[in-house]
């Protein structure tokens, strides 16, 4: 029997997957669907959900994932939880089918990197600290990629192990995929110095690593709670210097506990979502409205992979969208309260 996940993955376009997703939520009258019905009553010009184009689809505040567990099935196979680093309460995301998450993640990843592995690269998923959070979606995704790539892939959770692995095989290129803070810590070295030269380098004399030609670093972001906050440009500079790979080989991944899909940036700037997802950018003060391409707004996600939970939600990230749908993520929206005494000083001089 074909499962819903199979149907979703068999969809040949985002639009087909999206329609399947809408149909499922409508038939189940999910929390996410009831939200859309409520919102459409407030939106002028629309009578039914079917009449609302994707750009104007009402997005759920992402805080909903913190407030409750949204799940169509009563028995989700997995509940992912965010690390809860920016606040004390984690987001939680119910995956009806873990296989869907794994297959969607692997497909999205391999769409960009299959050729690299065909040319002999190996994969290292570097997940320091994540072992403490078995409900981490990143850990689960890394596991799926490792399973897909079998003997040319591994997951590593300590800097010592990573250092040893990189030293043992210094000939074949590596795709090193990890959270930004872990990669920066690695090149910072055990003393946590800011200089690149104090990394877990093969010899104490070396200034930095020199990964084999063709190696790629993929960082997942997530510097916000690190002991220092870096711009993406500075982060990529550090990683490029620290691992001895050209800047063009420092890539980025955008994902979160609340998403089934991911987005990748091959130039470190513009993120393209994988097949089941689309981005929209909403007005900062009127988040039911989209902003034209090229304008800063709040990043919204339409993720058909979230067929069991909430496929449409508004993040707290700022973004600009390009005509081809790719987005540049500009960091977290300032959530300082727009009220009371914190709302007071003109910033215009």
């Amino acid at each position, binding site marked *: 029997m074909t499962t819903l996940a199979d149907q979703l993955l068999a969809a040949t376009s985002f639009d087909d997957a999206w329609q399947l997703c809408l149909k499922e939520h409508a038939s189940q009258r999910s929390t996410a669907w*009831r939200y859309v019905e409520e919102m459409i009553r407030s939106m002028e010009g629309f009578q039914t959900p079917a009449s609302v184009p994707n750009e104007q689809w009402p997005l*759920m505040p992402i805080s909903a994932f913190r407030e409750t567990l949204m799940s169509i099935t009563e028995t989700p196979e997995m509940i992912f939880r965010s690390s809860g680093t920016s606040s004390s309460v984690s987001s939680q995301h119910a995956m009806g089918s873990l296989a869907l998450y794994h297959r969607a993640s692997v497909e999205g990843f391999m769409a960009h990197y299959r050729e690299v592995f065909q040319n002999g690269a190996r994969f290292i998923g570097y997940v320091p600290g994540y072992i403490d959070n078995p409900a981490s979606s990143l850990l689960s995704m890394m596991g799926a990629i490792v399973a897909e790539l079998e003997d040319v892939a591994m997951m590593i959770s300590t800097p010592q192990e990573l250092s040893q692995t990189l030293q043992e095989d210094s000939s074949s290129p590596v795709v090193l995929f990890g959270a930004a803070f872990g990669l920066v810590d690695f090149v910072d070295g055990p003393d946590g110095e800011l200089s690149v030269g104090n990394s877990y380098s093969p010899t104490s004399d070396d200034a930095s690593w020199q990964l084999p030609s063709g190696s790629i670093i993929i960082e997942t972001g997530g510097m916000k709670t690190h002991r220092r906050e870096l711009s993406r440009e500075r982060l990529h500079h550090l990683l490029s210097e620290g691992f001895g790979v050209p800047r063009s080989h420092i890539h980025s991944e955008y994902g979160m506990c609340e998403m089934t899909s991911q987005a990748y940036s091959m130039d470190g700037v513009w993120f393209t979502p994988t097949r089941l997802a689309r981005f929209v950018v909403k007005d900062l003060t009127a988040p039911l409205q989209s902003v034209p391409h090229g304008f800063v707004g709040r990043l919204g996600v339409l993720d058909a992979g979230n067929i069991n939970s909430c496929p449409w939600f508004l993040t707290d990230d700022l973004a600009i969208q390009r005509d081809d749908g790719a987005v540049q993520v500009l960091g977290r929206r300032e959530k300082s309260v727009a009220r009371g*005494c914190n709302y007071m000083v003109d910033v215009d001089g």
Partner: protein
Amino acid sequence: MDNALARAEILGRRWQEWIHQPSAEMEPLIEAQVSQSGHTRADIVFQLKHLAEAINVETLQAWVRQSWPQGVRTSSERIEPEYFESGEYPSSLVCCVHAGNIPMVGLQDMLAICLAGGFYAGKLSRRDASLMQSWLDYLRHTEPDLGQQLAWSTDAAALVQSLDRPIEAWIFTGNESTWETIQGQFGVNTGQGESQTTTLVRRAEASVAMLEDQQAALQSSELKALAESMLLYQGKGCRSVGIIVSAQPLSFYQHSCAMVDSMEAVIIESRQDKSPVSEERVMERGWCAAHQIPHIWVDHLLIREAPHYLNEPNESLFSTIPGVIYWVQGDASMVEQWLDDPRKAAQIQSIYAVNPRDYASGGSEKSVKSLPNLGIEAEIEALEHAQRPPIDWTPDGQNPLAWVLNLSIESRES
């Protein structure tokens, strides 16, 4: 103190003259304020009516008396009250970077500096310039001597240019990043950290209303007070109620016509319904409806049951969306827990109760601990006074008049 009392008389008298100008004079100012600020006309009129009652010769002189130093022991000497009387102490130049969230919100700071005999340099908010400029113009015109102690502008650079000596102290409202913003705006030497610079920083988000003794439905006057405390200034004031602690769950009131009627009455009276609808608030209401979270939605206001994680250590007590008020079932002990947590206590401006006398200090079972960041006994204020603070109220526990008077001691020590 006599000099300060004399200044209070001048300021109180001139204030009453200015605010009671003929309508033909005031109306254009109000209209200009509406167009530049986003404040509703009703909000402005409410504030002007309140300030007309709250500021006069008597209240200003009373403020001076209660703020006057009773002799000060410094690290090296004791300074007697007569020192302040002599008029020989240095007159501090204090820059106020005013807020714009509610009409004439910086007036108290301006008056404090003038009463203390200081030099007032006001960076007016562009959202709140019309009335303040008019008042300052009037004062300069009618009191030329006092006028020499006043400078103001909506532009930071222009204000700095107009001053003939450096700014010695700052009053501003904001959070940790605000001081950096101000340093940039004013070209302050960034090597000089906040610790070395004399600043009075207002840090709070909103206020708490306690309805813990309401075993029955609230009376109409209490509902009106509650509605006013939440709704005026579109909920953007730090004295605006952002969370209600009640013995009853919100579901007790959810279908109460009296509650909704009271809200609607205040909304219509204050014309909040003329202000633009916040789409974020609409989305929050949609979420509550979809997830069956108890809530009351009346035009522009959403009262909703607070998220379950409200009491977690790093969580905000208040919604990040103005006009969204949290309702939590609890009692005074819950508020005390918040006050015991510095991160939560720092968010709270004021605490109101329908019957504040129930919480009077003196060992009553219901007494609520002082706000830790105040260092003084916090008073539980009457809910009906939420948007009607006296001129001597102490935002964040800081009496700005006493603070400015104290500046002269600091400069003498240095």
